[in-house]
Structure formats: C-alpha cells, structure tokens
C-alpha cells in the first residue's frame, strides 16, 4: 500500500529539506508544512478506511550507489516490518487530524508564543516518525523511532534562557532515559521469545525477569504519555515551550503514542497478572490525584494545563489497566478526547498569552468580552475536560466508571475488590478538575478586567480556527458518541459492548466540584459558616479571584507541607535520582584527591585483589 510509505517518508524528507531553506522565506516553509500535513491527513484517512494489513517496506534499487551498497541498504528491509491493525488505524487517523490544525496555528502565531526557527522541520520529522512508530511491527525499529522522537521533542522547545533550556534538558533526559530502559526490556523479550516482532510476542508476567521486561517497557510508555512516576517533564515543558509545541506534543501526539504503546504492552506483548494490573491501576490513580492537586496551586496557566495533561493520562492508564473491554475502549476514547480538548486548551492559552503577554492567572480577568471566540472554545474544552455532559469528556469518563464497576464484579483479585476505592478517587479527581477549570476559566475570562488589558483584542481567525474546529469535534463526539463514534472508530479496535450511563458519578462530580471550589474560593469552611451566619461580609466579585484560592490552599496546614515538598521536587523522580547521583559523585570525587601515592596504591590494591581472586 503506497500510503504507508508516503505517510512516513514525505513528512520526514520534507522536514529535512526545509532545514536547509533559510529562515527569511518562512512563509514557504509554513505553507510547505501545511500542505504536507494536509496530505498526510489524507493518507491517514486512506489507511484508516482500508482493511488491516501487514506491510514490508521494500527499498528500491539505487543504481548510483553501486550494486553492493544498494544491496546493503536493501538488507535494511529486514527490520522494516509494518503492521496496521485497528488500533494503529485509530491512532493514525487522529495523528493525521492534528497535523493540519497545528501547522495552521503555527502559520498565524508569531513571536515568543509561536513558531521559532526551523519549527516546521522538526514538526514534520516528528510527524513522519510518529506515523512510523504507530505502524511498526518490529521492536528494534520501534525503539529506534522512539529515541529519534526524543530528539525532535528536544528541538521543539527553543532554549532561549536558563529556565527554558533547563526544561529542554529535563525533557530530553527523561525521554532518552526511558528509551534506554526500553532497550533492556526489549532485549529480555528477545531472549525469551527469540523474536522482535510485536505480533509474535506474547509473554506471561510470572517471573522476576518478565516483570522487569514489563515495567521497563511501561516506563517508556509512561514517560512519553506523562504518567506518574515519569510525568515530571510535562509541566516544565508546557510552561516553557511555545503553545504550538505544547499543543502538538505533550497534549496530542505524545498521548497518542504513549497510550498506543501502553495498549500494545498490556494487550499484545504481555498477559497481565493480577498484581501487575493492581500496580498499573494504582499508578493511574496516583497520576490523577497528585497532578490535579498540583494544578490547584499553580499560577502559570500553561503549567496548570501541563499538570492536567498528566491527570488525564491517569484516566487512560486506569482504563487500560483494568484489562476489560470497556476499560480499554474507555481508555482509548479518553485518549482521543483528551488529545482534542487538551490541544484546544493549549491553542487557547497561546492566544491569551499572545494577546495579553501575561503568563500568570492572577494577572488576567474579564477577557470574555474581549476575546469571545476564544472564550467560547475555552468553555467547551473546560466543560469537556471536567466531564460535563454533553461533551466528549463526559462520555469517556463515564465509560471509565462503567469499566471500573464491571471490573469490580468480574473478578476476585485484590484490585477487583478495591473497585469502590478506584471509583471514588476517579470521581474525586474529576471533581478537582472541575475546580481547576472553574478557577482557570473564571479568573481568565470573568471578573474584572485589569487596567492594562483594556485594549486586548480577539486573535486573527487563523489562530482561533483550529480551536473552533476542535471545539466542534468535542461537541460532536460527545453528542454522537453512542450512535456514530463508538461503532465506527473504537469498536473495531476493542470489540463491542453495551454502554450504560451512570448518573450518580456525574452528579457527584459536579456537586463535589462546586462545593470544593466554593470552600477554596471563599477561604475555607469556617469562613463559609461565618458568611452564612452573616458575621462576615463576602464580596461576590471575588469569587473568581485565583489569589484567594492559592492562599486558602497554602494555609491549609496538612496540605501546605505536602505542597512545599512537591515544589521542592520531592515527588519528582528526575529530581530524586539527580540528587542521589550527585551524592555518589561527591563521595567518589573526594577520593580523587590528586595525591600520587593514593593513585599508586589503587593500582597495587587492584593487582592484589585480582591475585587473591585467583
């Protein structure tokens, strides 16, 4: 099938060619990238509508290189095995959907929040690599592409100053590290099965070594998707990178890739046992809760969105970790929905940042009259992400709840018996998400307009168009979820089942969310009681002030300690490992005292130890 080779090669080759074109003619670059992304969306559609197939890439003859070299290059074909099944098709079509939107947005956005030099090249190379990753059947090719994606994501944060280069560094180190760990996992899989082909591998997790292989691959998937405990690069990335990069990678593509691989691991490569399932579920739940808690105390709205990207991944991990059909479908559906509304939110944040120049929530306010389209889209995304009907987030979240309930009744393992706990925490996470988005939308769009933002205008149509399209998709996939989206897109990848809606989870989410928000926004429960008793006056205008919210949270005695620790990086695996490596380094460096006698004695000691060994 031609489309498979084209969808990989054309973006990568165009991207490399665009690297050579000088920055002065950037419109040529922008339009080339838009053209190629539309083309690849078309090819993605072709692949999506075709039957599942396997495909071996055939390398043509290169008469110029001579016969021997040509043959040598053709031996590369050994590794270029592609397999397109329903899961790949599902992820490919959405990868294809985001490409034109992001490049459209990139044309419009300039300056600090928009494209930067060579954005198009790295954008297109990433696109081609992502398509290849989603289709490959060979684990070696997979790990190759995965690592190469780490390089392009590094290049998608322009390192301008100390903090942005630190974020770039952290991103590359974490994703590159996951690539290294995955090599070990894949090597173990190969030594167990003698094959690198995903379709031929199916290993039961029952021994230490298979556990290790499983978790090594999970580390790769979690890092990419941004799930606990490998999540910590996401907020830094979204804070420092331009919105167009954030909308493209951590919001959309990385979720698709990471969750795609998670499904491959959990459902193709391994057969999960109960304990493994429990660990995955716990990781999902922790991601949901801690990320949303961290989001509560952030001032920078792009960082808030970064934390939400982690929290939403928790739902997907949870759904897929359940291991039943409903959970899997819910996880995949939530992956798609999240990609849609999270990209949209990053587009919106880019618009706000561009038009106001402010990065902090407390500096914004009352923008709904100034930027009506942005506001409307933002509302839609906020309601979607919080799981309010009739938007798509509601459907996928309630499917996850359904999955948890089914899971509870289907087995007797420890994870199954705890289903109430999982359900409760998932609902709590959703409620806190609602709190966050009341805060986000409230403080940005409602309240009083700060004096220096009086002249703010709506952005150019080219910049709100992508988010408007995404908002329509949010509504469409929400309303027609059962009648069109599920049967046509999801069921082919997972299998069919009946969905039923669970009214009390949504109800609990809304009530709990609004209650928590009110408590925080007014300054604590005691304050509410005082207000009700009319002993204290309450300024209703303050209800959307982000400042009060932070203060309430910071002053809560138990939480403040935890937040302080979190801010110091105590829950950041990158930070912890960095600390311990430097600790060992200090000790080792002290041993190198520069005194010759010490060094000589090491040599002698080494020799003696070797001889004793003999």
């Amino acid at each position: 099938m031609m489309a498979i080779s084209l969808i990989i090669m054309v973006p990568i080759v165009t991207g490399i060619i665009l690297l050579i074109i000088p920055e002065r003619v950037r419109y040529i670059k922008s339009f080339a990238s838009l053209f190629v992304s539309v083309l690849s969306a078309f090819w993605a559609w072709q692949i999506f509508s075709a039957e599942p197939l396997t495909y071996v890439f055939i390398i043509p003859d290169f008469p110029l290189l001579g016969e021997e070299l040509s043959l040598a290059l053709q031996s590369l074909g050994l590794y270029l095995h592609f397999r397109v099944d329903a899961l790949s098709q599902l992820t490919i079509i959405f990868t294809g959907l985001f490409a034109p939107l992001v490049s459209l947005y990139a044309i419009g956005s300039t300056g600090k929040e928009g494209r930067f030099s060579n954005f198009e090249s790295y954008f297109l190379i990433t696109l081609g690599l992502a398509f290849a990753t989603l289709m490959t059947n060979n684990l070696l090719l997979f790990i190759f592409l995965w690592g190469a994606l780490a390089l392009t994501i590094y290049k998608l944060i322009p390192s301008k100053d100390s903090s942005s280069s630190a974020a770039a560094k952290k991103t590359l180190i974490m994703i590159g590290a996951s690539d290294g760990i995955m090599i070990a996992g894949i090597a173990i899989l190969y030594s167990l099965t003698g094959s690198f082909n995903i379709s031929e591998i199916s290993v039961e997790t029952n021994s230490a070594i298979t556990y290790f292989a499983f978790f090594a691959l999970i580390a790769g998937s979690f890092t990419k998707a941004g799930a606990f405990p490998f999540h910590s690069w996401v907020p830094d990335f979204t804070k420092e990178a331009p919105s167009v990069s954030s909308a493209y990678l951590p919001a959309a593509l990385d979720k698709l890739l990471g969750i795609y691989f998670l499904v491959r691991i959990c459902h193709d490569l391994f057969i999960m046992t109960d304990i493994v399932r429990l660990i995955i579920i716990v990781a999902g739940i922790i991601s949901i809760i801690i990320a949303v808690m961290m989001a509560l105390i952030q001032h920078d709205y792009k960082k808030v969105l970064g934390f939400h990207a982690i929290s939403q991944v928790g739902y997907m991990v949870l759904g897929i970790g359940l291991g039943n059909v409903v959970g899997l479908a819910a996880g995949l559906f939530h992956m798609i929905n999240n990609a849609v509304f999270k990209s949209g939110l990053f587009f919106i944040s880019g618009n706000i940042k561009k038009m106001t120049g402010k990065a902090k929530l407390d500096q914004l306010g009352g923008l709904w009259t100034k930027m009506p389209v942005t506001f409307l889209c933002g509302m839609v995304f906020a309601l979607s992400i919080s799981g309010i009907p009739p938007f798509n987030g509601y459907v996928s979240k309630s499917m996850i709840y359904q999955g948890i309930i089914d899971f509870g009744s289907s087995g007797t393992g420890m994870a199954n018996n705890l289903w109430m706990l999982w359900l409760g925490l998932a609902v709590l996470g959703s409620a806190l998400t609602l709190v966050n988005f009341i805060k986000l939308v409230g403080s940005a769009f409602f309240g009083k307009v700060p004096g220096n933002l009086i002249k703010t205008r709506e952005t150019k149509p080219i910049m709100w168009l992508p988010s408007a399209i995404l908002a329509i998709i949010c509504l469409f996939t929400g309303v027609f979820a059962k009648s069109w989206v599920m049967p046509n897109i999801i069921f082919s990848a997972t299998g069919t089942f009946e969905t039923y809606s669970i009214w009390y989870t949504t109800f609990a989410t809304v009530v709990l969310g609004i209650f928590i928000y009110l408590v925080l926004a007014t300054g604590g429960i005691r304050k509410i009681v005082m207000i009700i008793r009319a002993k204290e006056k309450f300024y209703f205008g303050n209800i959307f002030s982000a400042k009060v919210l932070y203060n309430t949270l910071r002053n809560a005695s138990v939480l403040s300690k935890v937040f302080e620790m979190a801010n110091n990086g105590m829950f950041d695996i990158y930070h912890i490992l960095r600390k311990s490596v430097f600790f060992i380094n200090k000790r080792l460096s002290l041993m190198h005292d520069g005194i010759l006698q010490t060094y000589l004695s090491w040599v002698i000691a080494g020799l003696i130890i070797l001889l004793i060994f003999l």
Partner: protein
Amino acid sequence: MDGWIIVLFFVIPLFGAFVMPVTYLFSSDSPKFITPVITFVLLILSLYSFVYQPEQIAYIIGGWKPVGDVPIAIYLVYDGLSGFMLVIINLIAFFSSVYAINYMEEYTGQKYFYVLMCLMIAGMNGVVLAGDLFNLFVFTEIAAKSSYALVAFGVKKDELEASFKYQVLGGMANLIILFGIAMIYWQTQTLNMADISYMLQNVENNIFPVFIQLILITGFGVKAALIPFHAWLPDAHSSAPSPISAMLSGVLIKTLGVYVIMRLFFNVFPVNESVSIVLIALGGLSMIIGVLLAVGAWDLKRMLAYSSISHVGYIIAGLGIGMIMLARGENQFVATLAFTGSLFHLANHAVFKGLLFLNAGAIEYAANTRDMKQMGGLAKFMPITLTSSFSASMSISGLPPFSGFFSKLIIILAAVIAGFYLIAGLAVVAGIITLAYFVKFQKYAFYNKPSVSSSIKEVPNLMRMSMISLAILCLLMSVLILPEIREVFLNPAVNTLMETTDYADKILGR
C-alpha cells in the same frame, strides 16, 4: 597486497618525525603541513589494505626463516583486527592533525609538537602490527613516551603535574607489564606471540597463564584506564592540547590498552573463564564509576575524560561476555554479537570522543574557557560547533539515529541474552547518566544565558572541516549495523577474536 606495505605504517611517521626538524630549518611552517600529509597517506593506506586484504598476512623483517620450528625474526602481522585498528587510529590522527594546524598557532615550539605527534602515531601503528612481545612493548613505549611529553606541552603548572602523574603511573604499568613478559619468557623461552600461543597450549598447569594474564590486565588496565587503574587519565587527557586529547581518548587508550588485551587474551593465551569474569567485572565497574565521576565535573575536558573511562568499560565488558561464551563453548551467536558490539563501540567511541575533544578545543579557542559555568549562549556564535557537538553528544549518549545507539543496543542485547542482567542494567544506567551530562554540556555551553553580542567567533576553517567530517561520520557509521556492510567492516575483526587459534596457525603455518 605486498607484505612490505605493512612496514610503511610506522616507517612513514617515524621518517616524518625525524625529517621535520630538518625541514623546519628551511621553513618554519613546514611541520604543520607535513603531518597532515603523512596522516592522510596513512589513512588511505590503511583503508586500502583494509578493503583489499581481508586475509591475515605476516611480514618477516629481513626475511629470516624460522630455524627448525622456532621463529627467530621480527614478525609483523596484519589481520582483520589490526586492519580495523589501523583505520581508526589513522582516521582520528588525520582529523586531529588537520585541526591542529589552526589550533596550535597559539603555542610555541610547534615543531616539537608535530614530531611528537608523528612518533605517537608510529608507536600506535607499530603496536597493532607487532607480532612479538618485545616489539609490542617497544612500540607501546614509543607511543606512551611521546604522549607524556604531549600532555605536558602547555608547560603550565597543571599540565606538568598531570604529565608527572601520568608518567609515574605509566612507569609502574610498564614495570608490571615487563614483569609479565619476563614470566612468559621464563615459561616459554620465546617472545613471538604465535609461538607463545603454541607453547601455552601445551602447558598443563592451568594456573600459570591465568596468573600472567592477571598481571597483564593490571599493566594494560592502567594504559586502558580501567577502574581502579584509571587515576592518571582525567588529569592527563584534560591537560593535553585538544587535538592530542582527541588522540589520547579516541585511540591511544584503545590501542595500548584494549587492543593489546584483545590480542593477547584471545589469540595468545588460551581463552579462560576466570579471566573473562575479571574482564566483565572491571568493565562493569569502569562503566558505572566512570559516569558517576563525569556527571559532577564542570571542566568540560575533564568530563569528557571521565566519560572515556566508562566507555572503555563498555568495550571491555562486551569483550568479557564474548570471551566467557567462547570459553564455555556455549552459544557462539552471543559471542559474535558481543564482539561486534564491542568493536563497533570502540570505533564509535573513537569518532565521537575525538570529535567532542575537538569541540571542547573549539570552545576553548573561541571563548577561552573550559569551565562550563562560564560558557553559555554560544549557540548563536558557533553554529558549527553546536551542530557537530550535538551529534557527537547524542551519539555518545546512545540516541538514534546516531551510531552510538546501535553499538550500545548490541552490547545490551548480548549481555541480556548471555544472562548477565547486572551488566545490562549497569550499561543502561550508565547510558542514562551519560545522556544526562551530555545534555548538561549542551545546555551550559550553548544555551542557558541569552546570547548577548560579544566578540566570540566561530573557529577557523580547517578546524571546522575536521569537526564537520567527524560529525557526519557519527551519523554515517550507523550503517555499520546493516548486515552487508558489517560483513566488510566489522566481521574480519570479529573473526580474529572468534577464531582464537587461527592467528598462530596461520603465522607459523602448522
């Protein structure tokens, strides 16, 4: 290929070294142009013989025939492994010497620099060709002595101290090596390596070869800078002028250390399980401690030097894994895989570490500092250094599509299949920390501060040329993973290690 061509590999640089002081009298610029010519000729010669001479040949100097069964002449042996090493040595030597033309302009006494450099190249080429222990030792010393002088070339306090430490530890290593050689001679009454190989096969006492091997591991371990014999390296490699650092880290430790270990332990001594365990242990130790030392360094060249320790660890651990598979007579496929990974990594490390030292030199040349804290914002002024050091950094950290990814992959794969999970784990961890400090280098050198206008300029053309060529090699050497290309470039060397007794058989024709 005629046998006499082999001799040219060290005759040309030796001749050059002694001619240059004479030509200097007529033109003070002559040495810096003669040296690149010499290294270029050597590079062409080594490539030519590598491609057209896949078989082993031995050249007997003076044509002295063996008396009875005893070979009495000086033997020079060229086989797959020697050819492989010669290509690497002369490749790095060529780019370093071209780079040195601009770089060394600031130094005084340039003629001595080029003389010493040629001597060092002659010594290294001699080591990989020597067919007997005596000449091996002599050539080792030629290379080592010139490197002592080159380390001290800056004649400042640090350089002299580093050189002094290097000399004392190197001298100690020589003593140990000489002791080992004497023991061999005592037991076998010969110094010809092929002959020793025969003699040792007949020795019934198994403990004796192992004893000598441990002595030799210590001696050559100092040269290869394995932990705990590494202490001289961080000082010496960071103090030398950058083109020399590139040579020292890129090829010298591999020629004097790793190559000799490979040659002696695979082709001369019978393959032995306990020795291979020692190699694996030392390799694993160097791998992890090397990176743990490097990660805290703020001196750029010192960081690169520490990282060399860890990468030699990778190579040695890979060799050890292959050796243990050979010794146990188990899965030969794993042994091939391990050797391929080791040799591939050896070649890769020569290229990317050579390039990184040249980058460090370029930064020092332009910004006049080696301290990463004082750099920053160089990306705008030094785009070529940025791009080339990025490809080298990503290659050394093992990220695709650069070549380092593949060699690391093969080594980890071999370790896992062979069942050495600990080594595989250490390799992964070391790889991650390597990535961490090379991204740190990228951050602190090129970004971090907003770039302000300053007088920093990109380095002169010849330095650029060397860096660009090596950066392209970092990418291009990935194709060595392809089976058809591996066949030509890596397999001759791997076969030398796999067919342990072939070496002696072919030379002595028995």
